[in-house]
């Protein structure tokens, strides 16, 4: 009997404390600075074009084979790259968010974005094309392979930056 009452007292104690529950869709939880959401393509603001040179290393290193890309000859001459991506698809329905594509990228052209809300009625919408990947990568800076900034951490990302 004592044990049962102990459980009741525990319940009563919890009833009087502040709940830890968050009403998720209405109240967004904080995301950590290292949070790995969907992979995104980075945009080079200096020359106003995508950083990627279509070397295909990310696609070959992907454990889920979810990246497909095709390259094109680069003729603009703004940078000294030989190729530029023509099409770039990531099937986020297959992606396992492991971050290997970002780790192996020799040109720092991609980064895991904080984008993770993928609920949809049609799974084909999970195949993100080049423009969508650039869109979710806006405002994301490359941090993989770079030393951690000295001083206080950039901290928890503001939930309003989710896309």
């Amino acid at each position, binding site marked *: *009997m004592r044990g049962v009452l*102990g*459980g009741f007292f525990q319940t009563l104690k919890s009833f009087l404390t502040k709940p830890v529950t968050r009403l998720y869709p209405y109240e967004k939880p904080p995301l*950590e600075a290292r*949070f790995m959401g969907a992979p995104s393509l980075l945009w080079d603001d200096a020359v106003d074009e995508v950083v990627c040179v279509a070397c295909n290393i990310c696609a070959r*290193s992907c*454990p889920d084979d979810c990246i497909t890309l095709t390259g094109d000859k680069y003729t603009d001459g703004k940078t000294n790259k030989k190729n530029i991506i023509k099409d770039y698809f990531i099937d986020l329905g297959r992606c396992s968010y492991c971050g290997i594509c970002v780790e192996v990228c020799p040109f720092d052209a991609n980064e895991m974005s904080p984008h993770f809300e993928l609920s949809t009625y049609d799974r084909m919408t999970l195949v993100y094309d080049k423009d969508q990947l650039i869109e979710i990568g806006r405002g994301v800076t490359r941090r993989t392979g770079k030393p951690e900034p000295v001083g206080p951490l950039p901290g928890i990302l503001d939930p309003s930056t989710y896309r």
Partner: protein
Amino acid sequence: MAIASAINMLRETAPSVSEERNLETVEMTINMGPQHPSTHGVFRMVLTLEGERVKNVQSHIGYLHRGAEKLGESGEIEGYRKAMITLDRTDYLSSLLNEHAYVMAVEKLAGISVPERAEYIRIILGELTRINSHCMFYGAFGADSGATTPYMYAFALREEIQQLFEAVGGARMFPNYYRAGGLREDVPHDFVHRVQAIIDRAFYAFDDFDNLITANEIFLSRTRGLGILDQTRALDLGVSGPLLRATGLPYDVRRSEPYSIYDRFAFDVPVGTTGDCYERYLIRQEEMRQSIRIIEQALKDLPGGPIMGNAPKALRPPKGEAYVRIENSRGDFGVYLVSDGKSSAPYRVKYRSPCFVNLQSLNDMVIGTYIADAVVALGSIDIVLGEVDR
């Protein structure tokens, strides 16, 4: 007192075992699972019942088979890194512990040394994973034995640990954080404070866990004396982890065959006496406290320095094989790797999963009990079907 007398009255009016034997019953075969919430995934039991007693049980596994081992061998480039992704997803509750075993096997194969700091961080995160996994057991076992509230308490603590994993490795369940030779990146600056905060919180949480069901009479009557597995039988079956320790054998790979730097820490290996479901529960509760002890010691000694050893960028280990075993949250987890010396993916990957072996003891536990107790006995094994089927 009213409840106690009501329980007593129910006991008196219920038919005793001898009366039950006298009733004419027909054997019945029922199918439990694969889509049954108390089978912890997609496990199927075909139960032969006599009345409400289990006469025979036939287990069917393989519904969650994803070919994790074969996928681990199939990487064209970066194969050693890819294999860990699928390993993470086999035992999704102790992913970082399994990563530890895997990277240790690769390090043994390729002769890579690991810096001190990385070893300490691996220990801290590994023990947090163990707490995380035992929390899940606590919640699920409560639900199996008829109490749904423990889930809420268990997940409040799990949430904090997973938040730390997100801060450290970027993902809550599959951080993919360890690398052969060290870690992917150093921990955040506030790592020590955050782990300390979790330790402080965990002590209260464990007390809450205890207050809630450990001494609860209903829980005791559901679990005590149920699913007894004696020591000789357990050893015959090759059972490991809390199941084996509940039979009274203090066998823990961390202690009996220390890997990594576990020989530097003081911790107790809790053992039981009878080997019933309740003792398995108590042992896991105690193990969580012991994990906290290890984390406290590791945090105190956490050295500075590099987090990556002499690992080459493109891993291509020489021809050979390596077997590494660790104490997973469920038992003795082993990784066997064979390298052919040419390719950048392992030639053969084999995981020795404790869940699969521990599940063999189900027949010994369940036969002769009530069907409702079969669910509790299955819950006390703490299986993860992803690891059973791989």
